[in-house]
């Protein structure tokens, strides 16, 4: 029995990675949920929007690195995020102008818009691959660890190390800041309120003089920014590969639906639910349990419920459970 070491192992292998991953998913799910709330369709191109934004940020990072501009211990990519947002916003607004607006004017059925977003997904995907290629790109630099496992062991004298990567700390802090700004914007500013009104009841919002095109424009701006931030954070934490971003679509949608489509608070909660279950179920608990259980009850196996390759299955199973027992999600969805 060694509670302290057990807790450190738990934090190192489960809590910290899950919190970082959850923040990334939450940011992604916020984008999906905003599109759903305002434009009323499930945007299949969201994963690739993230990839496009991140690609611009990666290219800028390389440029900055070549010029010798850096942030010292912090990754240069932080400086590049605004450029990534700019690029993603440009692409997304062009798409809206030439693709989505037509269907909005027609009042097309949501499922048509979903199919349209499938076409947009193809184009973004091809675009990203043409510019940066389909391979893994690493762009993280700066100090790798805030606390490395060895330092932690020396500092505390515990047998278990706790490593805290810079990217994880940055992810969580950035996510908190971005979410705080978003909620302030949605709840306190005039534009944010008009967005919520539009999402709640479109006709009533139109009657009270809200300009729908403006609301849509602002929504795309926010979505592009959220997608880029989420994408860059994910890329810093793991690595940037266009196909991985496309695959993120499933956990992101699962997070948004679990939380309740159209509900920003739900998207955040859903992101963490998905992340914690993914990491928790695919983690081999042998080490942690070895510290926490009395020696007689020590497990023999790895105590891993599913191998890591099945992480998609987990988001899916949670999704199905929520859909079966609480179709509107944990928080009642449908309006901002």
């Amino acid at each position, binding site marked *: 029995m060694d509670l302290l070491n057990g807790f450190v192992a738990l934090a190192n292998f489960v809590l910290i990675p899950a919190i970082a991953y959850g923040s990334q998913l939450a940011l992604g799910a916020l984008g999906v949920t905003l599109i759903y709330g305002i434009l009323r369709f499930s945007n299949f191109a969201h994963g690739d929007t993230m990839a496009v934004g991140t690609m611009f940020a990666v290219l800028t990072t390389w440029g900055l690195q070549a010029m010798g501009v850096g942030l010292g211990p912090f990754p240069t990519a932080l400086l590049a995020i605004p450029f990534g947002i700019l690029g993603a916003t440009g692409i997304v607004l062009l798409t809206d102008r030439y693709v989505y607006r037509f269907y909005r004017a027609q009042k097309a059925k949501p499922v048509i818009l979903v199919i349209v977003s499938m*076409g947009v997904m*193809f184009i973004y995907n091809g675009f990203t691959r043409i510019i940066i290629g389909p391979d893994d790109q690493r762009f993280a630099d700066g100090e790798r660890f805030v606390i490395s496992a060895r330092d932690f062991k020396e500092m505390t004298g515990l047998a278990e190390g706790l490593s805290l990567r810079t990217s994880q700390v940055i992810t969580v802090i950035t996510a908190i800041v971005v979410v705080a700004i978003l909620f302030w914007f949605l709840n306190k500013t005039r534009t944010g309120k008009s967005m919520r009104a539009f999402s709640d009841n479109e006709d009533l919002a139109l009657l009270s003089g809200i300009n729908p095109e403006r609301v849509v424009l602002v929504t795309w701006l926010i979505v592009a920014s959220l997608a880029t931030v989420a994408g860059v954070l994910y890329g810093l934490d793991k690595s940037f590969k266009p196909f991985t971003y*496309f695959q993120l679509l499933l956990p992101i949608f699962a997070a948004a639906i679990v939380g309740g489509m159209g509900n920003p608070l739900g998207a955040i909660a859903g992101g963490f639910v998905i992340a914690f279950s993914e990491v928790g179920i695919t983690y081999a608990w042998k080490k942690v349990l070895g510290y926490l259980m009395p020696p007689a009850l020590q497990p023999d196996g790895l105590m891993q419920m599913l191998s890591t*390759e099945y992480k998609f299955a987990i988001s*899916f199973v949670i999704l199905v459970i929520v859909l079966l027992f609480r179709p509107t999600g944990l928080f009642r969805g449908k309006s901002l």
Partner: protein
Amino acid sequence: MRTFLLFALVACLILGTGVLQSWNSALLILNMGLVSAVMALGVNLQWGLAGLFNVGVMGFVALGGLAVVLVSMPPVGAAWQAGGGGILLGLTLGAASIVAAVLVWSRTSGTLRGWATAAVLLVGLVIYRMVLDPAVEAVESIDSASTGYLGGLGLPVLLAWPVGGVLAAGAAWVIGKTALGLRSDYLAIATLGIAEIVIAILKNEDWMARGVKNVIGLPRPVPNEVDLQNDPAFVERAADFGIDPTTASTLYVKLEYGLLFAAVLVILLVLSQLALNSPWGRMMRAIRDNETAARAMGKNVTARHLQVFVLGSAICGIAGAMMTTLDGQLTPGSYQPLRYTFLIWVMVIVGGSGNNLGAVLGGFLIWFLWVQVEPMGQLVMSGITSGLSDGSWLKGHLLDSVQHMRLLTMGVILLLVLRLNPRGLLPER
């Protein structure tokens, strides 16, 4: 008339490939076009006839591929002895614990209900893993370089096609039971998820179909090229046509595959047409156009949706089995959603959703473009970059990126068709 002209156009395109490039690549396009057309028929049944949004085509196609391995490969006796019983027992126990959990959930009530169900599932999972894991390890350790799996049943490979349909139908039934009746976006996400899971299972459960180690050398329904080349009668006949035996044998094999596939396509097409024009088809379209009205007329919308979802997925499974048979190998790593799900959707939308002939046309046309965009893009790109100096970074990058042009092109085609001609090339009648 329009139908005839468009099909003639596609035929010309494929014949043109034969004349300009080679007959081998033309037949390759034709064969995969036939398979794609079958997949498009399945999706069209779901989307065109019933308005169901299934983006898990890849999963059903992969299940069809799995069926080929499970049916046609010879069984690995040593592996069955080592752990076959254990695996079967483990799977049975796993299924039993799910059934038990469902029973507990439906027979109890109150606050304990959730916890009791969860406890049953957890205990079930532990027992399942305790039985399954050692058996899997035993199976996978048997000659893992060449087998390391249970093998199949050693039955004729053509039998695998209907079996593939049945496997896909089973999976579709489970998904449909849970996700149909919810909003269309939720069905989309659910099918997207199940497709990823099917691929994950194929990649990781080595005891079943060797995972990423791939199963190669699947039995073929047609003769082998080498056997043909060694057959004096065949060589003589090839000489009569004035082609050398090697080319003749590859052409002959491809042609035979083509005939088999065409037979399946024609059967399925006739059945789909009969279904479309039957009272059942009219009912499905009525449900698609106005669910509320159909429900008010006493139609069981959810049950009908489940029915058509299972049928369409079964067709995708058959197509998947056909494709794996054509490839002669099962490579789970090669299943990509863009290629096996979304491309099929482009086929259906471009061809004309709701029109079976349209789906078939879209299957051929889009497959042709998918194959030919790359050489065309190569041509265009080398034209654009001809002004740049050789060996410059930009030129190399642009030429490398040609292979990604097809994604871009497919996206543009889909958007253009949706915008300018949303009913497709052959609109629904």
